[in-house]
C-alpha cells in the first residue's frame, strides 16, 4: 500500500466503525465492543505506519478535486508532514486507549453503543483535521468534532450540570467558529484556493491584504476550540461528561486542534506582528489565570481541566513566538500525560466514590487502593509540573527556550514583546502549575480519616491503559533530540537559563504547597465534609454520574468546596473566592450575552403577543361580532323570514319603478 492509501484509511476506518456501531448497536450488542476498539486500533497502527513511511521527509501531498464550486475549488487533499503524522499517531494511540478504557468504565451503560460510535466518529474527524490539506475539508472535521463533543459532554443528560455544560460548550465554541469561518473565507479570497499550501505561499509572498484582521478572526475560532481566554469557560464545565471523554476530547486531542491549526497556518499569523502580540497576551492571561483557578478547584477533573487550559496556553505562547516545533512537541507530550491524568482521575473517582478533593483528603489509604493509578499519576503530575526528566519538562523547556530566543530579538519577524510576555507568564505559570499539581497529589492520595468505600479491584482494561500511557509520559522527553528532524529543524533541547529558572520555580511551588498542606492538613479532621457515592457492584461510570449530580448540593457549587483544610485556600487568600468561579468570567458573559439575549427574547415575545397577535385576534373578533348580530335575525319563525322577504321585494320593486320612470 502506498503511503497515501494508508493515510486515507486512517480517518476512514474509525468513521466506518462509527457508522457500523450506530447501525448495529441495538441489533448486535456483542459486536459493539469490537466495532469500537478494533477500527480505532487499526487506525492507530496505520498512523504509526504512515509516520514511519513519511519519516520526517519532504511533505507528501495528494489531492482529488471534491467539487468544482465555480469560484474557489474544494479539494479532498492530504498533506502529510512531520507535524501531521506525529499528531495523528498521538490521536490514534490516545483514542485507542480511551476506547479500551471505556469498555470497562461504561461497562453496563445502556447508551454505550452510541457513546462508542460517537467517540469513533470524533476520532475520525480529528484525524481528518490532522491530515487534511484543504481548509474547507479541515473545517468539516472541525465542526464534526464540535458536535461530537456536544453529544459526549451531555452523555449523562439526566443530570442538569451535564445538560447545561454541553449546551455551553457548543455555544461558546460556535461563538468562536463564526469569525473563524469568515477568516477562512477571507484567506481563500486572497489566495484563490482553500489548499493550505497555496494559502501559505500567498502569505509568505505577502499576498494577504489584511493579515492582522484575518489572523485575529482565525484566532477567535482557535480560542473557542482550544479553550483560550476569553472563550475558555466551556472547558471546565465540560468535565460533566464521562472521564474517558474528558481525556480524549477535552484534554488530548480536540482542544489541541486549534493549536495544531495555528501551527499549520503559522506564516499567516507571522505576517502580522500585532496578531502575534495579541496571541502572546492571550496565552499569558490564559496560562496564569487558569493556573490560579486550578489552585482553587475542588473537583479533581476541574483541576485537570484548568491545567489543560493552561498547558494549551503554553502551546499558544510557543506559536506567538513563532516556534511551531515547540508548540507541537508540547501538544504531543501534553496529550499523552494529560490523557493519563484524566484516565487516572477516573479510576480515583470510582475508587473514592467522589470527585471532590475535599472528600478525598478525608480518606485513608486511597493510594493503596489504586496502586496503578497512584504511581502512573504521580509521574503524570511530575510531567505536568515539568520536573525533569519526564516528558513535560522537555516540551515546556522547548516553549520557554523559544520565548527566550524571541526576547533577544534574534527571531525573524517576531516582536520581542511577545517573547517577554510569554517568557514571564510561562515562568510564573511553572510555579503555579507545580503548586496545583502538588495540591492534587497531596489531597487525593495522602488524605487522613475514614476508609474509602470499597469498590473492589479496578478493571484490568482501565489499569493497563494507564501503563500504556505511562511510557510516553515518562520517556517522550528523549524525543527532544530527534524531533527537530521531523519538524522545522529548530532546536527543541532545553537551554540552561530557562531550565534552571523554571525547574527552580517548579520546585519552589512544590515546597510551598507542601508546607501549606502540612499546616492545613490538621483542620481536615475537625471539619467533616464530603459525600460519597458507593456503588460496589456497578460500573465505574455510575459513581461518577452520581457524584457530578450531587456535587452542587453537597458542596454548594460545581467548582469549589468550603474546606478550611485546602492548602490552595491558604495560599490564595482573598483571591480564592474569585478563583473558584474562574474570576467571574461567567458573570461577565451573563451580563454581556445572556441577559441581552433574554431581554431580546422577552421583547420579541411582547411584540408577538401584544402587537402581532392583536391584529390576528382583531381579524377573528370582528367577523365573530358581526356573525353574532346576524344570528339574532334567525328566530326560527318562517313567517318573520317571509315578511322580511316581502319587505325586500317591495323595496326592490319600488326602486325598479323609480329607476324605470327616471324619477
Amino acid at each position, binding site marked *: 500500500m502506498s503511503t497515501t492509501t494508508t493515510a486515507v484509511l486512517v480517518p476512514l476506518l474509525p468513521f466506518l466503525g462509527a457508522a457500523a456501531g450506530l447501525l448495529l448497536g441495538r441489533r448486535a450488542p456483542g459486536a459493539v465492543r469490537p466495532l469500537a476498539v478494533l477500527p480505532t486500533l487499526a487506525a492507530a497502527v496505520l498512523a504509526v505506519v504512515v509516520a514511519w513511511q513519511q519519516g520526517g521527509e519532504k511533505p507528501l501531498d495528494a489531492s482529488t478535486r471534491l467539487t468544482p464550486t465555480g469560484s474557489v475549488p474544494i479539494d479532498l487533499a492530504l498533506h502529510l508532514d512531520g507535524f501531521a503524522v506525529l499528531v495523528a499517531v498521538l490521536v490514534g494511540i490516545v483514542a485507542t486507549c480511551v476506547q479500551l478504557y471505556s469498555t470497562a468504565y461504561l461497562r453496563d451503560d445502556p447508551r454505550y453503543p452510541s457513546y462508542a460510535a460517537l467517540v469513533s466518529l470524533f476520532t475520525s474527524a480529528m484525524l481528518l483535521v490532522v491530515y487534511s490539506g484543504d481548509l474547507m475539508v479541515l473545517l468539516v472535521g472541525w465542526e464534526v468534532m464540535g458536535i461530537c463533543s456536544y453529544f459526549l459532554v451531555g452523555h449523562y443528560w439526566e443530570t442538569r450540570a451535564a445538560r447545561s455544560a454541553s449546551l455551553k460548550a457548543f455555544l461558546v465554541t460556535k461563538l468562536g467558529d463564526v469569525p473563524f469561518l469568515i477568516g477562512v473565507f477571507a484567506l481563500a479570497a486572497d489566495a484563490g484556493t482553500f489548499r493550505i499550501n497555496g494559502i501559505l505561499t500567498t502569505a509568505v509572498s505577502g499576498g494577504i491584504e489584511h493579515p492582522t484582521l484575518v489572523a485575529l478572526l482565525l484566532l477567535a475560532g482557535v480560542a473557542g476550540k482550544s479553550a483560550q481566554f476569553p472563550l475558555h469557560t466551556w472547558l471546565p464545565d465540560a468535565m460533566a461528561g464521562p472521564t474517558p471523554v474528558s481525556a480524549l476530547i477535552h484534554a488530548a486531542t480536540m482542544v489541541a486542534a486549534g493549536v495544531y491549526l495555528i501551527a499549520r497556518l503559522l506564516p499567516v499569523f507571522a505576517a502580522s506582528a500585532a496578531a502575534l502580540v495579541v496571541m502572546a497576551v492571550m496565552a499569558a492571561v490564559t496560562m496564569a489565570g487558569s493556573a490560579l483557578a486550578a489552585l482553587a478547584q475542588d473537583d479533581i477533573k476541574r483541576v485537570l481541566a484548568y491545567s489543560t487550559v493552561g498547558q494549551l496556553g503554553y502551546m499558544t505562547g510557543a506559536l506567538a513566538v513563532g516556534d511551531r516545533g515547540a508548540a507541537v512537541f508540547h501538544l504531543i507530550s501534553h496529550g499523552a500525560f494529560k490523557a493519563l491524568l484524566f484516565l487516572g482521575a477516573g479510576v480515583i473517582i470510582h475508587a473514592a466514590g467522589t470527585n471532590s478533593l475535599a472528600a478525598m483528603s478525608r480518606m485513608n489509604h486511597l493510594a493503596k487502593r489504586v496502586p496503578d493509578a497512584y504511581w502512573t499519576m504521580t509521574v503524570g503530575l511530575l510531567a505536568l509540573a515539568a520536573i525533569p526528566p519526564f516528558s513535560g519538562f522537555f516540551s515546556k523547556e522547548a516553549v520557554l527556550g523559544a520565548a527566550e530566543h524571541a526576547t533577544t530579538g534574534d527571531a525573524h519577524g517576531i516582536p520581542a514583546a511577545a517573547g517577554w510576555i510569554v517568557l514571564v507568564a510561562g515562568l510564573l505559570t511553572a510555579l503555579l502549575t507545580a503548586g496545583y499539581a502538588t495540591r492534587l497529589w497531596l489531597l487525593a492520595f495522602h488524605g487522613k480519616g475514614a476508609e474509602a468505600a470499597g469498590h473492589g479491584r479496578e478493571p484490568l482494561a482501565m489499569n493497563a491503559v494507564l501503563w500504556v500511557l505511562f511510557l510516553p509520559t515518562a520517556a517522550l522527553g528523549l524525543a527532544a533530540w530527534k524531533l527537530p528532524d521531523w519538524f522545522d529543524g529548530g532546536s527543541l533541547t532545553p537551554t540552561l537559563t530557562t531550565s534552571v529558572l523554571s525547574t527552580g520555580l517548579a520546585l519552589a511551588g512544590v515546597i510551598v504547597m507542601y508546607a501549606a498542606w502540612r499546616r492545613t492538613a490538621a483542620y481536615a479532621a475537625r471539619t467533616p465534609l464530603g459525600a460519597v457515592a458507593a456503588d460496589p457492584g456497578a460500573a465505574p461510570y455510575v459513581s461518577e454520574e452520581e457524584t457530578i449530580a450531587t456535587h452542587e448540593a453537597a458542596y454548594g457549587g460545581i467548582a469549589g468546596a468550603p474546606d478550611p483544610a485546602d492548602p490552595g485556600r491558604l495560599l490564595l487568600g482573598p483571591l480564592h473566592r474569585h478563583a473558584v468561579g474562574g474570576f467571574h468570567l461567567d458573570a461577565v458573559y451573563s451580563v454581556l450575552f445572556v441577559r441581552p439575549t433574554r431581554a431580546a427574547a422577552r421583547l420579541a415575545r411582547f411584540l408577538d403577543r401584544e402587537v402581532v397577535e392583536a391584529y390576528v385576534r382583531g381579524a377573528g373578533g370582528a367577523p365573530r361580532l358581526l356573525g353574532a348580530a346576524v344570528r339574532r*335575525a*334567525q328566530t*326560527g*319563525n318562517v313567517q318573520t323570514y317571509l315578511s322580511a322577504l316581502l319587505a325586500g321585494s317591495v323595496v326592490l320593486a319600488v326602486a325598479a319603478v323609480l329607476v324605470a320612470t327616471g324619477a
Partner: protein
Amino acid sequence: MHLVYAAVLAALLFCVGLYGVLARRNAILVLMSVELMLNAVNLNLVAFDVWLRDTLHAGQALTLFTIAIAAAEIGIGLAIVLQVYRNRGTADVDRLRDLGEDAHRPDPDRADREEKAEAAA
C-alpha cells in the same frame, strides 16, 4: 270584459293570500293561503292571455301547469303538516322554531344524542 276587473280581483286575492301566509298561525291555513296566491296568479295569466289574444295560448298552458304543480305541492305540504302534527301535537307555525338561533332553548336532537351517549357509557 275589461282587463281591469280580472286584474283587481287577482290583486285582491293575492293580498288576501299574502295576509294569510304572513299572519295565520295554523300551518294548514298557511298552505290554503298559498293556494289563494297561486290562484291569483292563475287568474292573471288567463286574463292577460285573453287580452293579448295569444295564438299559442301560452298563458292558459302555463295555468294548467301551475294547477298541476299546486296539486302536487299541496299533497306533499299537507303530508308534512300531518306528520308534524302527529310528532308534536301541534301544527302552529309560531311554535315550529327548531332552526332558530337561540342558545337558551335546549336542542331536542342534541338532548337525544346526549342521552344515547350516556346510555352507551
